[in-house]
């Protein structure tokens, strides 16, 4: 059984995303909406990490070994300026997408396990991740013409 593997991926994806949201908040504090909202979304990711913890405990005994690291480092420090903001949001988007598809996979695992508690956590967190993606898309769409065409 490899459920623990995906729980580990999700755990790390959310922890990395929380960290990246915080780095973007710090680097783009002059963008007031980005600053305040990325702070909130980082806290949301922290909660996802916490909510995964009991399941990692439950299923870890059955894990063959430590989860391997499948994903590359998407985010290697924040940039500055209008284009920098766009690129940083773009990185966040890719990281959130990674978290999103991982939730999807975990949701399938929860169904196979008949683990209603895990399914409920996945459904709630997946919904929040999907809003994170929608916000990133919205913010990038409004920033892109000015950053790319006007500068």
């Amino acid at each position, binding site marked *: 059984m490899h459920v623990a593997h995906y729980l580990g991926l999700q755990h790390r994806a959310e922890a990395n995303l929380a960290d990246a949201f915080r780095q973007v908040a710090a680097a783009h504090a*002059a*963008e*007031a*909406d980005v600053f*305040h*909202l990325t702070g*909130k*979304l980082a806290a949301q990711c922290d909660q996802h990490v916490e909510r995964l913890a009991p399941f990692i405990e439950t299923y870890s005994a059955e894990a063959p070994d430590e989860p391997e690291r499948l994903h590359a480092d998407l985010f290697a420090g924040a940039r500055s*300026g*209008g284009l920098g903001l766009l690129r940083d949001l773009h990185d966040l988007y890719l990281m959130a997408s990674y978290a999103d598809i991982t939730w999807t996979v975990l949701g399938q695992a929860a169904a196979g396990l008949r683990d209603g508690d895990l399914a409920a956590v996945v459904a709630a967190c997946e919904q929040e991740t999907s*809003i*994170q993606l*929608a*916000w990133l*898309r*919205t913010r990038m*769409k*409004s920033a*892109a*013409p*000015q950053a790319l*065409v*006007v*500068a």
Partner: protein
Amino acid sequence: MSDRVADPWGERTPYGRGARWPVRVDVQLADGLSVGEVDSWTQSASLLHSNGDAMDIAVKDGRIAGVRGRATDRVNHGRLGPKDLFGWQANNSPDRLTRPLVREGGRLVESDWDTALGRVVDRSRELLDGPGGWGRFGFYTSGQLFLEEYYALAVIGKAGIGTPHMDGNTRLCTATAAASLKASFGTDGQPGSYTDVDECDALALWGHNVAATQTVLWSRMLDRRRGTDPPAMLAVDPRHTPVAREADVHLAVRPGTNVALLNGLLREIIQNGWYDESYVAAHTLGFESLARIVDGYPPERVAEICAVSATDVRRAAELLGGARRLLSTVLQGFYQSNQATAAACQVNNLHLVRGMIGRPGAGVLQMNGQPTAENNRECGADGDLPGFRNWANPEHVGQLARLWNVDQGIIPTWSPPTHAMQIFRYAEQGSIRFLWVSATNPAVTLPDLARIRRILDQEGLFLVVQDLFLTETAQFADVVLPAATWGEKTGTFTNADRTVHLSEQAVEPPGEARADLDIFLDYARRMDFRDRAGNPLLPWRTPEEVFDAWRACSRGRPCDYSGLSYAKLREGSGVQWPCTDGAPDGTERLYTDGQFHTDPDYCETYGQDLLTGAEFTGDEYRAKRPGGRAFLHAVDYQASPEVPGAEYPLRLVTGRSLYHFHTRTKTARAPELNAAAPDVWVELHPSDAAAAGIGDGERVRVESPRGAVTAPARLSGVRPGVVFLPFHYGWWDSADGPDGRAANELTLTAWDPVSKQPLFKSAAVRVTRTEG
């Protein structure tokens, strides 16, 4: 007539439920002038608040010499408030701008229109040249121009230059009203009517100090309260306002916690079965989600978050739940506070679950702060498209392109129009290099003024300011354009309950000052904006021609003016839109049949997530199959972005004085109003003052991480832990320049994720006694 500074609401004229509000005609004329000596009276309405009180302007020897309320008008039945009775004197002020000014060698010097507009046009052409030129322009307009002026400006911006960077200071006062109406009901548009005051059996005022902001509406409410069968009354406000003192239940909530309170009240309504199950089933979407979220807010938890008693929460819920005709009004206590749109939507939800909408006495009034804010929303010189059209709906954009005969691609709809704070951010980054400010004063009204001054003063930003006086903002300008105002130009405007008034020119403007519309049209001519056929994009010469163009633009939309004309407005008085061939006398209430504007082809927005502002797509929206049902949006409470801590232990809220409007450009030039509130003050709770060793009347320094204000203390008026400052006071009438007088030295740069309205009521501050 009584002394209307001392007695702002005038004598009571009590009336009972369902009766007609008695007429009381208020008149104020220049000293020594009698009614018989007035040369002529010119039809108008108030431009100093959003109530739309109709009046006639007295003219004597070619000058404005007083005002008289219009007895026949549906809004005020003859009454006027102190600002209207005295504010007209500002028109005659000797320091009006009478000639254009241009910057020469670092100083503003008198010039002429050709030179001044020539510079504006030269700079515009230079910036427009090349790809992305549109992105160099920003327009920051007002809540005080006329409908015709907003519409002309919207066409210049959207189809002439093709920029999304146009907003009004309506963003600071009324954006949340619009956002919450769109979110709940599908489009903007006030559901209720002022006549609901006459019919209601309960009144709930949510963050709305109507006694100061719309004095005549408050008179109407007080007259009901003094009559037979008076309505019960709830006030939610951290301040002990006249409204709070009058209310049967007053919840002095901790600022920033409105969503928690509303969640708790809705929980009580649902748990006690005080909701209308059949209305909810037939006319709403999202009840289960709403019920699930509010279930987490029992009165005891609400009491803890909001710092009110659980008993009072229950009493408030009983008042709301027992009403048969509930009228709610909402204003800045919600709109400028944490989770603004979510909180305003919760008031809409309350009415939806109780089926209290679209019936006499049962209605919602999401109020406006400024007199013509409504028109800016309708005409799209703010963050909207004209006619409450949906920027994300290509068919709606196509309607505008056909109307203006332009290529649809020039109209910028790749994302929502840029909101004010983002416009200033682009200017700060040097991306926007041309900023045209009309009829507002961002150097005093925007948050974190030290930052705003740096932006306005920035090298490389070409700043045009169009105003009556040399305001704090105008002092930063490269070009200053002298404008005519109320009484000196003709146009229409619409109040908070959709009542349209005609305001006619009574006198000539001073010197070379020109109507804002003439300035915009002159700019458009000089820029040679053309449609696809090569004809002028703005072919109009008179306000009436623009109004007729607007009638066509608004046809078929919620704010339908097609049945209105200058002639009709001249014959009668105020008329409520929609006014069409089928409803020639206007429309009292929206949604009388429970059919909301949520059809995907008609709605103004495909919706946003209330916590983040994430936009939903048309496909996502259609999948909800709204079919004319209203949306019940609910979210959890989240704390304000800035909360008190050890260093800054108190919460600042800013707000209005009854005697002033905006940045006092007019009201401080009316002697009676200026004398009533000549300088800034700070309100503290006695317990907070005692802790800081501050006595009543002593000068105190209020500091936030961004700046400081010094003012005498008034030890009353607010709940513990809260500091109040009026926001009207800048430095144009002070010798020392920016001198710690403006409340916005303290406020923080943060805004609601949906409405993008700045959170003026959420800064953390400390107070200390100043030496000496």
